[in-house]
């Protein structure tokens, strides 16, 4: 419950405070969102599996976002930013789908 409220509080804060993202960081925003979603769904699934761990969750969120941004940055420098972004999205997308499927099995028993 607290977790859900915290998430909503974050969204509301983001919409109300209207923070501006520096121009240099803007290309990494979409990939950071995908990485964050992966961490969140992984956390929810772990909670339902009964193996949730705070430290693991926080570390996975931070490292996901940083690694994803780093890969995109590296790709941009090498001129293959688009392809590497696709790679990141595919891997994280597969994980998100797998975790959401597990969450669905927990909730609907199907």
């Amino acid at each position, binding site marked *: 419950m*607290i*977790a859900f409220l*915290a*998430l*909503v*509080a*974050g*969204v*509301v*804060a*983001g*919409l109300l405070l*209207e*923070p501006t*993202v520096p121009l240099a960081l*803007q290309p990494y*925003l*979409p990939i*950071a*969102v995908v990485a*964050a979603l992966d*961490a*969140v769904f*992984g956390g929810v*699934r*772990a909670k339902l*599996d*009964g*193996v*949730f*761990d*705070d*430290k*693991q*969750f*926080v*570390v*996975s*969120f*931070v490292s996901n*976002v940083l690694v994803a941004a780093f890969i995109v940055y590296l790709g941009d420098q090498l001129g293959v930013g688009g392809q590497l972004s696709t790679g990141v999205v595919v*891997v994280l997308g*597969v*994980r*998100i*789908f*797998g*975790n959401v499927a*597990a969450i669905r099995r927990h909730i609907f028993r199907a």
Partner: protein
Amino acid sequence: MTRARGEPWLAPDFLLELFRNPLDPGYADAAAARAERGPKPRWRRTGALVLRTLTLVLVGLLLAVAYREAVAAEPERSRAHAGLVDEVKTGQQRTDDLQQRTEDLRNQVTAAQQAALGGSAEELARVREQQAAAGLAAVSGPGTVVRLSDAPAPIDPATGRPSTAEVNRVLDVDLQAVVNGLWASGAEAIAVNGQRLTSTTTIRVAGNAILVDFRPVTSPYEVSAIGPDDLERTFRRTAASASLADLANRYGLGYSTRTETSLTLPAAPGPSLRYAHPVGGTK
């Protein structure tokens, strides 16, 4: 992410593992460690809760910011497009204004010439004649209009809409062939889409556009020529006409000719000679 001893750093079926078990193995490790060592002390659990809440606030913030950025980026893109369109329109307007000014100035020059020649009708007529022949004065007379157009865009079988990719276009060489054919058939003045041709006019391609005297012209192209009454018939017998008819047959380009009893061709912007001087001039 701890790993059992002896396990290879990267399992050979790494991707398969990713698909089969998408949950971070760290969660299982942490749960195992907890079961082994018992629950953590109270202060650590409180700290972890605060950390988790902070992280989730951060995630929410990230989502909201990304949403706002995506929404804000859209009008910016269309703004940039509108700006470019405006710039092009302003440029075209400027060119038109300048051409209008050229026209006015040319009229003044003609008036001044008339005054300078002291109203000698014979001299004036000669100057007029030469200007018309050089393309520096508007002319009218009977002639022929050759019309060329790009082939219609093929219908994309997937979307059912006209595809924009593969269009058989009229090329600069086609226009050149038409113009040369018309000169050869006895034309005395030619204009392409209202651009009068002079001795220094070029017809060339730049990207997807054809430039006539550095002004872009687009399909359909109308090449108007003033010449003898049988100009159309003569032109129809030239090699240029035959090859265009062939292109029209094979690639679907539009090609037609018609005879007009009265055509008016505008004057071309006068070339200003900077290096060449008239031979035997009075100056």
